[in-house]
């Protein structure tokens, strides 16, 4: 046990002191924020500001109406074309338009579904939808005028509507939006940790094998201790990184609260966080996160470690052998989306109980509420099975590791590795 502890210490310290650890710990939250804002920004920027010629035969679309809408909504420019219509149809680009729309003669009571934005290029629906909604606003105006609905009535028509959202009557605090958010974030975090730190275990084992230090070490400690030390050491690194992130969030939160900003982004963040703390059982979620994170890590990293011990320095060998395991993790994330969309469906329930997918799927379900969405028996069974699962994979991996770490030469197949695991002594 003492030797395992020495190994854990080395694995932990060498990794935590590396520059890459410090950089990745700092950069990950920044990248995460950038990703969220960046995607919004890119989505906004990718919409083109179209200049559209309107060739109107219905007589409803007047230059004033278009000009008025252009002044409120600057996402596109609609211009009425009369005399140059033939020229625009012949070559709209030469006339300075991105495309044109021919509006046929029609009745204001029926409208039409067959308008086309005609252009030399294809445009995405995100650009044309903006033009479409602008045209519809003008069309509403035209209808209102024809029906003689004045401004007062228009306000009533636009403003009054019925809204519907779901409410959990057993758990007053439950907020589906927040539960979905927490479910996604914790499921994805576990997913990243399993893949990133799992492959770190694999690389670490491969390094020891190709360096041939494995042979020196196994003459001092048992192979099982070596493997356990590595898994625990790297698991502690992941835990450290995770705590640093939580600390980071709490510091930002408290600074935001202390500076008392109620407006702007900080105010918004603080408000959201208060909302979050009040709508979910934070200690339970943190406890479960810690559990599923560690147990899932043991479950998968021991398998990755076994693969690292079986292959030589060739990364491709490692990738092809670890593919089935990586697939299990990716399958879990696919099931997570389904579980968040419908947290009580049979798929969600079983995927959150079966060990290989439970770390990710159960973590996505828990924010919806325990014991209403996730009954205690499901949580208990899921945890118990996951513990059994990782005890089995660690044992299984230890058997493969013991043989693999000193074998050089051909890459073994999964079948051979199974034979190593189940033979006596």
């Amino acid at each position, binding site marked *: 046990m003492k030797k395992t502890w020495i190994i854990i210490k080395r694995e932990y310290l060498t990794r935590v002191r590396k520059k890459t650890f410090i950089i990745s710990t700092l950069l990950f939250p920044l990248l995460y924020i950038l990703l969220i804002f960046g995607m919004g920004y890119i989505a906004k920027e990718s919409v083109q500001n179209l200049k559209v010629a309107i060739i109107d035969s219905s007589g409803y679309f007047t230059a004033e109406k278009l000009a008025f809408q252009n002044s409120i909504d600057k996402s596109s420019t609609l211009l009425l074309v009369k005399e140059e219509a033939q020229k625009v149809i012949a070559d709209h680009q030469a006339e300075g338009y991105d495309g044109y729309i021919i509006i046929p003669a029609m009745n204001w009571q029926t409208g039409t579904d067959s308008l086309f934005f005609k252009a030399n290029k294809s445009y995405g629906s995100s650009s044309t939808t903006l033009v479409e909604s602008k045209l519809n606003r003008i069309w509403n105006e035209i209808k209102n005028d024809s029906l003689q609905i004045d401004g007062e009535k228009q306000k009533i028509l636009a403003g009054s509507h019925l809204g519907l959202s779901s409410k959990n009557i057993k758990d007053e605090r439950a907020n589906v939006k927040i539960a979905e958010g927490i479910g996604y974030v914790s499921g994805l975090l576990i997913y990243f940790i399993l893949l990133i730190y799992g492959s770190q275990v694999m690389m670490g084992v491969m390094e020891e094998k190709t360096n041939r230090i494995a042979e*020196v070490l196994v003459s001092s400690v048992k192979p099982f201790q070596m493997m356990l030390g590595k898994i625990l050491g790297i698991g502690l690194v992941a835990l450290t990184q995770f705590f640093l992130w939580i600390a980071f969030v709490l510091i930002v939160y408290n600074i935001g609260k202390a500076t008392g900003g109620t407006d702007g982004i900080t105010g918004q963040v603080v408000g959201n966080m208060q909302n979050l703390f009040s709508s979910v059982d934070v200690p339970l979620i943190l406890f479960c996160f810690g559990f599923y994170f560690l147990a899932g890590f043991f479950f998968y990293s021991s398998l990755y470690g076994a693969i690292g011990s079986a292959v030589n320095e060739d990364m491709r060998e490692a990738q092809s052998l670890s593919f089935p395991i990586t697939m299990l993790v990716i399958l879990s994330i696919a099931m997570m989306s389904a579980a968040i969309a419908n947290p009580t469906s049979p798929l969600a329930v079983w995927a959150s109980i079966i060990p290989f997918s439970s770390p990710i799927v159960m973590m996505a379900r828990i924010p919806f509420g325990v014991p209403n969405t996730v009954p205690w028996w499901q949580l208990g069974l899921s945890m118990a099975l996951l513990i059994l699962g990782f005890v089995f994979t660690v044992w299984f991996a230890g058997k493969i590791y013991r043989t693999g770490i000193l074998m050089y030469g051909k890459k073994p197949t999964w079948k051979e590795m199974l034979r190593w695991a189940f033979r006596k002594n």
Partner: protein
Amino acid sequence: MPILELQNLKKYFATQKAVDDISLNVEKGQIFGLLGPNGAGKTTLIRMITGIFYPDEGNIIFDGKKFDPINDVAYIGYMPEERGLYKKMKIGEQAMYLAQLKGLSHKEAMEKIKKWFIRFEMETWWNKKVEDLSKGMGQKLQFVTTVLHEPKLIILDEPFSGLDPVNSNLIKDEIFHLAQAGSTIIFSTHRMEQVEEICDHIVLVNKGKKILDGTVKQVKQDFKENLFSIGTDQTTISADANAPFEIVGAKDHSYVVRIKSGNSPNDVLRHLLQQNISIHSFNEILPSLNDIFIKLVEGTPTARQFQKVTA
């Protein structure tokens, strides 16, 4: 009392009898040569002694008791042929780590590392990484980490490969030192001139079996072919049918003769003196270990063949 006693050890792999019924004794304070061609089963044998493999059959008695890998490895130092160190780890920390894994406390380990680093002039290396070292420097570090915890039994697999003559001598002196101080050394190599120089006792294994066991002196006696070299100023020595020897080689004024069975070296001298031949030198030619090695191993295929093992 032997420090290590192997009794009928067997280790079969799926396609090879790697170690097939080997017994041997290693006495305390001995420098013991474990020899054999590539793939003879030396590494498997060593791995059983270091507790890495369990034998399929047979017993290992270490220091008078049945070998207990978990506790006894603390008294064994093993330097494998393939060097193994963490490339990115600082040298001082690496030595400390390996020493602690052998069960030394931080304080003990620090004292010993300092002593050895000073002796090997490695003090300035502490904060360097292994990847900064040359192959020979890495070798020295590996040697230090092997003997640091003052093991009773030290197993060195090709300890001189990659070392220049100066550093080879340094390590060689340390090996003698350690043996004098009471450590037992098992020394595995293909380089027979080193074995002759260093070892007291040798065992030769081939194809998983022990084919030779004895002191270097004894082995040489056993394999001598009654050859003598004679230096003379005579241009010719003739050996007729009555002579107690036959000539097997001649070069300038020296001859190599084989004494016929039933005769002694004195018979040869008497015969030569009767012929009035003046003799400058008369030496027995003992076979070199290299010759013995080649003679014993020759004829067996150079590479071991894979076979189906039914054990």
